[in-house]
C-alpha cells in the first residue's frame, strides 16, 4: 500500500506551476492591486511548496522510485512535455519559496512608489514562476524556454529603476544571458539531432561519449556558466547585482544564479555523466580556486557595500567549482554541494536585504561613510554578521556544516592519494579566511567609536526581514540531515 498522499503528487506539481503562473498573470492584468496579489500569492505559493515537499517526503522513501513525472496535457514523452520532481528539485523549490517569501515581504516596504510598485510586482512574480518551472522541468527545450522567462524578467528587474548604472548593468546582463541561452540551445539542438528526443530521462538513457555529446556538453555548460557567473565568465555579475534594487539583488544572487548552477549539476549528474573525466574535474577545480581568490580580492577592494556582496557571490561560487573534482572521487559529494548552495543562497539574500536597508537609511552604500548608520542600527549589523558568519563557515551555522563536509571530502581525496587534493583543501580552508576578511570589512565600522545616526526611517518589513532570513540561514545547519536525506531521493544520481 502506498503511503497517504502519493496519488496527489502529480496534481500538486501541475498545480504549483498553475498557481505561480496564475499569480503572475493576475498581477500583470491588474497592476493596481499587484502588491496585494503578490503578497497573497507569495503566501499561497510558499504554503503549496511546503505541503508538496511534505507529501513528497512522506510518499517517496525509496530513492529508486522517488521521481514523480507528470505528462502535461496527458502526452507522455517523447511526444509531450514532462514535469519532473525529485529530491533535488524539492530542495530548490523550498529554498526558492523561503527566499521568495522573504523578498516579497521586504519589497512591501522597499518598493513603495505607486508607479514603481506596478512595474515591480508583475516582473518579480514572473521571475518566481519561472524559477519554479525551471526546477520542475524535465525537457531540454522547455528548460531553454524557462531559462528565458527567468533571465528576461531578471534583466527587467535590474533595469527598472532607470538609472544609468542600473541600465548599463542590465544591458550587459541581457547580452550575456542571450548569448548563454543561444549556446545552451545549440547544445539542445545537437542532442536532438543525434537522438531525436528532448526528454532528459530518455536522453540520459541514450547518451554515450560521442562527438555530439562532447560538443553539446561544452556548449550547454559554457552557456550556463555564463549565466551562473562562474569564473572566468563572471564579469557581468557585479555591475548587474550591485546596482539593482536590494530585493532584486537578493533574488539574483540567491536564486537566479543558483538556478543556472542547478541545471549544470542536473545535466552532469544525468545526461553528461559518461563524459566526466579526472582531467576535466581538475580543470574545473582550478577555475574554482581562481574564482575564490579573484572574487575575494575584488570584495576586499570594492568601495560599496553592495559591490562587496556581489563580488563575494563570485568567490563563494568558486567552492562549487572546487567541489567538481571531489565529486569525481566521491560521487556522493554532490549533495553537500547542493546543501552549500542552499545555505549560500539564504545567507547571500539576507546580506543583500540588510545592505538595502542600510542604503535606504543612509542614502548611499559607500562603506567609508556608513559608520554612523551602522552604529545606530545594531539589528542590521546583527543580520549582516549572522549571515556573514554563515558565509564564513563558523561553527554551528549552516555554512559550517556545508564547509566541514566539503573539507572532509577534500581530505578524503588527499587520503586516496591525490596530490592536487591538497590544493582543494587549502582552497576551501583559505576561502573561509578570505570570506571572514570581507565580512569583517562590512561590519567593522560599527565597532569603531563615532557618531550614531539612524538616518531615514525604515519600515518594519525592511527592519526585520533581513534578520529573520539571516536567522534561517544560520539555523539551516539544523536541517542539514533533512536536506541531505531529501537529496538522496534523486534517482539516477549517485
Amino acid at each position, binding site marked *: 500500500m502506498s503511503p497517504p498522499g502519493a496519488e496527489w503528487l502529480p496534481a500538486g506539481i501541475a498545480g504549483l506551476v*498553475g498557481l505561480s503562473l496564475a499569480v503572475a498573470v493576475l498581477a500583470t492584468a491588474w*497592476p493596481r492591486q499587484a502588491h496585494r496579489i503578490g503578497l497573497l500569492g507569495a503566501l499561497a505559493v510558499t504554503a503549496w511548496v511546503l505541503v508538496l515537499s511534505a507529501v513528497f517526503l512522506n510518499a517517496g522513501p525509496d530513492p529508486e522510485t522517488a521521481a514523480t513525472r507528470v505528462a*502535461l496535457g496527458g*502526452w507522455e514523452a517523447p*511526444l509531450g512535455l514532462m514535469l519532473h520532481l525529485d529530491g533535488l528539485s524539492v530542495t530548490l523549490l523550498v529554498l526558492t519559496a523561503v527566499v521568495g517569501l522573504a523578498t516579497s515581504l521586504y519589497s512591501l516596504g522597499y518598493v513603495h512608489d505607486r508607479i514603481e510598485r506596478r512595474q515591480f510586482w508583475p516582473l518579480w512574480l514572473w521571475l518566481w514562476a519561472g524559477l519554479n518551472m525551471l526546477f520542475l522541468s524535465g525537457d531540454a527545450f522547455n528548460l531553454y524556454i524557462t531559462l528565458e522567462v527567468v533571465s*528576461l524578467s531578471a534583466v527587467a528587474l535590474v533595469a*527598472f529603476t532607470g538609472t544609468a548604472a542600473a541600465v548599463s548593468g542590465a544591458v550587459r546582463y541581457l547580452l550575456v544571458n542571450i548569448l548563454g541561452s543561444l549556446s545552451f540551445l545549440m547544445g539542445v539542438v545537437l542532442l536532438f539531432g543525434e537522438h531525436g528526443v528532448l526528454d532528459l530521462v530518455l536522453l540520459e538513457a541514450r547518451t554515450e561519449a560521442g562527438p555530439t555529446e562532447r560538443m553539446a556538453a561544452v556548449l550547454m555548460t559554457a552557456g550556463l556558466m555564463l549565466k551562473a557567473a562562474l569564473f572566468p565568465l563572471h564579469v557581468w555579475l557585479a555591475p548587474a547585482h550591485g546596482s539593482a534594487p536590494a530585493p532584486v539583488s537578493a533574488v539574483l544572487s540567491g536564486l537566479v544564479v543558483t538556478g543556472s548552477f542547478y541545471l549544470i549539476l542536473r545535466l552532469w549528474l544525468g545526461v553528461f555523466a559518461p563524459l566526466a573525466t579526472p582531467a576535466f574535474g581538475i580543470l574545473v577545480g582550478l577555475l574554482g580556486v581562481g574564482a575564490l581568490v579573484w572574487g575575494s580580492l575584488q570584495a576586499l577592494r570594492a568601495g560599496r557595500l553592495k559591490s562587496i556582496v556581489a563580488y563575494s557571490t563570485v568567490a563563494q561560487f568558486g567552492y562549487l567549482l572546487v567541489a567538481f573534482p571531489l565529486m569525481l572521487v566521491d560521487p556522493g559529494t554532490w549533495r553537500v554541494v547542493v546543501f552549500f548552495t542552499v545555505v549560500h543562497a539564504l545567507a547571500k539574500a539576507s546580506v543583500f536585504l540588510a545592505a538595502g536597508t542600510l542604503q535606504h537609511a543612509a542614502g548611499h552604500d559607500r562603506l567609508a561613510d556608513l559608520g554612523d548608520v551602522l552604529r545606530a542600527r545594531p539589528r542590521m549589523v546583527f543580520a549582516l554578521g549572522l549571515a556573514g558568519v554563515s558565509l564564513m563557515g563558523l561553527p554551528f551555522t549552516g555554512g559550517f556544516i556545508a564547509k566541514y563536509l566539503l573539507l572532509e571530502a577534500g581530505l578524503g581525496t588527499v587520503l586516496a592519494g591525490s596530490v592536487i587534493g591538497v590544493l582543494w583543501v587549502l582552497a576551501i580552508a583559505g576561502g573561509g579566511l578570505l570570506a571572514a576578511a570581507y565580512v569583517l570589512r562590512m561590519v567593522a565600522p560599527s565597532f569603531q567609536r563615532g557618531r550614531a545616526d539612524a538616518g531615514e526611517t525604515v519600515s518594519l518589513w525592511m527592519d526585520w526581514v533581513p534578520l529573520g532570513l539571516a536567522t534561517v540561514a544560520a539555523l539551516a545547519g539544523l536541517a542539514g540531515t533533512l536536506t541531505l536525506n531529501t537529496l538522496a531521493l534523486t534517482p539516477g544520481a549517485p
Partner: protein
Amino acid sequence: MNGLLVLFDLVLLAGIVGVAWRCLASTDLFRAVVLFITFGLLLALAWVRLEAPDIALAEAAIGAGITGALLLVTLERLRSIMAERRSGRPHSPPPDPTGPHALLRALHDPLPEHRTFLPALTFALVVGGLLVTALWHQPQSVGLEPVVDAHMDVSGVDHPITAVLLNFRAYDTFLELAIVLIALLGAWSLGRHDLIPARPAPGPILPGTLRLLVPVAVVTGVYVLWAGSHAPGGAFQAGAILGAAGILLVLARPRQLPMAPGGPLRLGISAGVALFLLVGLYGLAAGHGFLGYAEAWAYPLIILIEVAATLSIALTLVALFVAGRPAGDDA
C-alpha cells in the same frame, strides 16, 4: 533538377553567410540594418528549401514587418538623442572627440582595434569547426515525425505543427506568449514612451498606401490565423502580420499615438496568456492534465486560444515598437 537545386542551395547559403558577414563588418549602422533586413529575406528562402513554410511565413512577417521597422526606428531614436545632446543641453558635457560620445557621431561604429582580431577569429573558428565536426558525425535520425503522425487524429487539428504547438507541447507555447509579455513589461518599466522621431511626408502617397494596405493586412492576418489549423499559418504569424499593420498606423500618426486607457490595454496584452492558463487549469480540474483538452473539445479550444493569442501578440508587438509605457497605464 537536382543539380539545379544543389546550385540554388549553394548560392543561397553563400549569399546568407556573405550578407551576415558584411552586416557585422559595417562601420555604418544604417548599412548594417539594411543588410540585416536582406539577411531576413534570404533566410526565408532557406526555410522554404528546408520544407518549413511555417517558419518562412513567420520570418516574412517578422523580418519584413517588425524587426526592420524596429531597427530603423531605433537608429533614428539614437540619432535624435545624440543630436539633442550635442545641440547644447546646459548640463551635458561637450562632445569629446576621442571618447565614447564621438563613437556614436552619426551612428558610426569604428572598426575595432586589431588586438582582438586573432583571438576572436581563432575562437570562432574552433567553435564553428567543432560544431561542423559534430554535425557531420550525426546519424540520419528520424526525429519525432512518426510519433506526431500517429497522434494527429486525436490532436483536434490537421496541421502537424499547430498540433505540436497547441496540443502536444502547449506548455512551451504558453511560455512563449509569456516571454513576449515579459519583454513588454520590461520595456514599460523603463519609463513612459516619448515621441517617435518622424518628419513630415507631404503628398497623397503615404495616406493612400495606408488606406489600401492596412485593411488588406488585417484580412491577410485573419486568413493566416484561420489557415493555421490545416495548413502553414497560425497564431504567431497572424499576430505578427496584424502587429505590422498596427506599426503602419503608428508610423502614419507618430505624434498622435492613441491614448489607450490603462485597464483595457493591460487586459488586451495579457488576454492570450490568461485565456491559455484558464483553459489549462480547467484541463487540470477536469482530469485531462494541466494544459490538456478533452478530445472532442480540442478543436474549438485551440481556435479560442489562437484568437486570443493573436490579438495579444499583435497588441504587444505594436507596444514594443512604441517602447515606453503609455501615460494611460500609470492611471
